[in-house]
């Protein structure tokens, strides 16, 4: 009965590949987010979606494309992976845009 889940937990891939990270929440929340945590543990928002609509897009390269097929899912697709994309990516959700955010366990992406 995990509230916010992400798959995969670990992802190791070569430069130039395209990969996706999936996020699902079973809390009935309307808003979902993607955050990136770099090697120095700095956590920064990338995107937020409210009811499947993009609300925040924080100067993220357009190689990153979020996709929300429904309110419970927000997937992150990354094209042409670069070394600098190596990080832990966290998904989160909240009931509405100003409520407490619940985080997923994170996906550690390593680009070789």
């Amino acid at each position, binding site marked *: 009965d995990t509230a916010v889940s992400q798959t995969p937990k670990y992802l190791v891939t070569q430069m130039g590949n395209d990969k996706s990270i999936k996020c699902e929440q079973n809390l009935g929340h309307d808003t979902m987010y993607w955050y990136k945590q770099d090697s120095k543990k700095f*956590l920064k928002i990338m995107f937020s979606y409210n009811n499947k609509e993009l609300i925040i897009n924080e100067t993220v390269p357009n190689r990153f494309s979020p996709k929300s097929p429904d309110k419970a899912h927000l997937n992150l697709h990354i094209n042409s992976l670069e070394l600098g994309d190596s990080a832990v990516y966290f998904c989160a959700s909240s009931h509405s845009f100003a409520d407490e*955010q619940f985080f*997923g366990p994170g996906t550690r992406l390593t680009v070789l």
Partner: protein
Amino acid sequence: AQRVTQPEKLLSVFKGAPVELKCNYSYSGSPELFWYVQYSRQRLQLLLRHISRESIKGFTADLNKGETSFHLKKPFAQEEDSAMYYCALRRWNTDKLIFGTGTRLQVFP
């Protein structure tokens, strides 16, 4: 622009010692301030928020608008408090959380 500063990357104390994790912010409006915690191998979770004015796991934090600070305090640290702590700011009535760079708290036995 809004910014959250946590000046200490690492804070090491012995069990039973008082702890204060510093957080300063810059924002001209009415902010909401939060402390999030990430224990080893666990997900990030909300520890406390300034509007609730409650104590969680012995931790308290008071918003000081004059000093633009929201320091996290605990009078007697426990080993299980060892974790990464993030201070975060949200502009009133928005969903964008701005995180500080985090402080790793190590509590030695």
